[in-house]
């Protein structure tokens, strides 16, 4: 094979892998469902146009030139989308590094590694861009329909953003590798991706709360103070915003910039990609943590099981990054709580659904880790315990963890409003229990390291979990404001749960 054919062959291989992975994610690994998945996806895309219309429909007839505050809002939106892409790109880059099986094969092949990794970098950029296009299409559609063809430029901006986000992600990850080593990079990259994904929204909210005491993210952006500090209307900083609105000169420049950035990253890093990958593959043999000498602990069999689950959760990097993220989401409402401390503000109510939602999500993840993510199923199954006491011990651990994390928050709420605190606690318990129950009904034995892919094993469980935590959060909020509506919402959520149970593979 000539180098050129080898490269195009590898590119096709990469694309096929990416497509299969995506496809498997969409169909839950079942080929037969392909048609249903495509129809479902189209339907979902069509459905997305509705919220898209609601959110940005009214901006469709914005025209150039714009005043500063509109420029700020558009640029901030673009920046937000870009950070989300960046976080997704960091995720895919680390995934490529740590997917060991494939790397062994590639690196033992006689092909030129720098070339192969250039292709791989391009493939990452392509998949990030494709994903971004997929999600932005409904929004851009709405703008094009409402405001004319000039909004098509926005697609170009999305492409430029995808390319540059991938380039930055690769550079950041490889630099992290060099600086802190492969073992910690994986962990740091996970947290970084999570925080970048959430951080920007949260930062805006915090800023808005501090300055005005409301929770709208536009408040700070449209305020006069910010406009006074912002650069001139002609400044290059506004080019992304102008390109979105159909300024072709700005658009071309952005696309060129994105391509140049990606090209530079390929040129600089594709050679280093191989070393980095080798280091990542070696990860695990170095940097071992040592435990201290201590006597064995006694107790009942269930206690032994609980202790093991707690140790494993404690040592789980996912849990730490997830908890951090959930707590991050709690920052704005907590701030609100602190600001409106004393006066009974309506805004205070807001903290309840956020807490309930966070608890539900966390409980779902924890329950998966303890119930499905058992790495030695044979050992536990051959131990002299009944299966039900094993399950009970695992559920206890989930609920204990949730209690430890959330009781300080609820306790703080008691000082502000005992009534609200009690509603929050009650719905929180119900929500966490529901999420745990769903994981229990849909449990499938899996390795703990497959956590990231747990959603693919059951679409229904994933949706049910999301609906349940949203439903309980809404119930909590409504119970505080409109008790009757709250009861109705609670009944609906309970009904949905019952339906989920009916369709679950393990009814007990």
């Amino acid at each position, binding site marked *: 094979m000539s180098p050129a054919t080898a490269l195009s062959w590898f590119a096709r291989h990469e694309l096929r892998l990416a497509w299969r992975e995506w496809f498997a994610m969409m169909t839950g690994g079942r080929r037969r469902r392909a048609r249903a998945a495509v129809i479902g996806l189209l339907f979902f895309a069509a459905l997305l146009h509705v919220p898209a219309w609601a959110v940005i429909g009214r901006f469709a007839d914005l025209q150039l030139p714009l005043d500063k505050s509109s420029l700020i809002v558009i640029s901030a939106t673009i920046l937000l989308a870009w950070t989300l892409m960046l976080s997704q790109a960091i995720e895919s880059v680390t995934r490529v590094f740590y997917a060991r099986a494939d790397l062994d094969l590639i690196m033992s092949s006689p092909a030129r590694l720098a070339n192969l990794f250039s292709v791989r970098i391009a493939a990452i950029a392509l998949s990030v861009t494709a994903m971004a296009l997929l999600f932005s299409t409904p929004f851009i559609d709405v703008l094009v329909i409402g405001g004319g063809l000039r909004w098509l430029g926005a697609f170009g901006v999305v492409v430029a953003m995808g390319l540059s986000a991938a380039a930055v992600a690769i550079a950041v990850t490889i630099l992290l590798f060099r600086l802190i080593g492969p073992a910690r990079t994986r962990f740091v990259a996970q947290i970084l991706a999570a925080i970048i994904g959430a951080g920007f929204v949260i930062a805006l909210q915090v800023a808005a709360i501090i300055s005005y005491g409301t929770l709208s993210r536009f408040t700070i952006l449209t305020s006069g103070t910010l406009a006074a500090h912002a650069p001139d209307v002609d400044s290059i900083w506004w080019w992304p915003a102008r390109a979105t609105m159909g300024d072709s000169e700005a658009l071309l420049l952005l696309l060129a910039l994105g391509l140049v950035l990606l090209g530079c990253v390929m040129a600089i890093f594709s050679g280093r990609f191989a070393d980095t990958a080798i280091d990542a593959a070696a990860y*695990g*043999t*170095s940097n*071992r*943590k*040592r*435990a*201290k*000498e201590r*006597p*064995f*602990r*006694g*107790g*009942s*069999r269930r*206690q*032994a*099981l609980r*202790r*093991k689950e707690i*140790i*494993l959760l404690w*040592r*789980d990097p996912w849990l730490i990054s997830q908890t951090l993220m959930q707590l991050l989401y709690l920052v704005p409402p907590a701030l609100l709580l602190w600001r409106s401390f004393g006066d009974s503000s309506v805004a205070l109510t807001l903290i309840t659904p956020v807490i309930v939602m966070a608890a539900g999500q966390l409980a779902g993840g924890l329950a998966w880790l303890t119930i499905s993510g058992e*790495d*030695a*199923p*044979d*050992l*536990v*199954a*051959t*131990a*002299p*315990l*009944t299966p039900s006491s094993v399950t009970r011990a695992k559920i206890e651990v989930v609920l204990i963890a949730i209690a430890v994390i959330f009781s300080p928050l609820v306790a703080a709420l008691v000082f502000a409003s005992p009534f609200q605190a009690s509603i929050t606690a009650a719905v929180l318990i119900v929500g966490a229990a529901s999420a745990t129950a769903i994981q229990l009904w849909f449990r499938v034995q899996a390795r*703990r*390291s497959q956590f990231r892919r747990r959603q693919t094993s059951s679409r229904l469980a994933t949706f049910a979990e999301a609906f349940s935590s949203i439903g309980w959060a809404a119930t909590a909020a409504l119970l505080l404001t409109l008790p009757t509506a709250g009861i109705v919402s609670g009944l609906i959520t309970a009904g949905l749960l019952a339906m989920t149970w009916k369709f679950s593979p393990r009814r007990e």
Partner: protein
Amino acid sequence: MVATDAKPDGVAVMKPESSALELRGLTKRFDRLAVDSLDLTIHAGEFYALVGPNGAGKTTTLRMVAGLLRPDDGAVSIFGIDALADPVAAKQVMAWVSDEPMIYDKLTPLEYLEFVAGLWGIAPSASKPVAEELLSSLGLAPHRHERCEGFSKGMRQKVALAGALVHDPRLIILDEPLTGLDAVSARHVKGLLGDRVRAGCTVIMTTHILEVAERMADRIGVIAAGRLVAEGTLTELRQQNGHADTSLEDLFIALVTLQDAA
């Protein structure tokens, strides 16, 4: 030839009265019949080797004994305990080591053994010295405080094996315990199992290394297509097939091809 490993053929290990394991009409069907109304009796204090071609149903049989799979039909009795009716009591006296070592990446070997001992309800004061001793006899003592995530396959296998021995079971069931082990570790494992048998423990293991079966086992069972096609000491197997001094390998191949032809 290693003298300590070698076991003279046909030595009657004081023919025990009670049976450690009795399978009656054990049947399991997946897409096809995997285990076909299997009858098997293993005496207490015996080292029993189960051999057979790939897909013969060895693992399936042992998983049913260990309580990991529910048989479609048949009875399993372990030291007189009906394992299907009272699985917890049966599990208390046995240990299972699967062919794929399953341990926890984030636990150290010592923590793993602590957990296993806790599951079997062993007093911590008794289990800690046993655990330390097992780890050092398997050559894992220098790694006993390291997390298992960086361990090789053989090291994992050894940790899993130590887990099976730490609660002092009366019946040990092992599915291909020697794959992935180096010569020294394999020797250690064989030595450990031999010691257990001498101490009165019953061991059942499957293996593809016929030499091991030949040298260590008191009795050998040959299973093919879910049925027991031959059973006995090596001499008995030879006599049954009319070959005076063939190796077990030749016998095995003869038996299995005979079964295939049938």
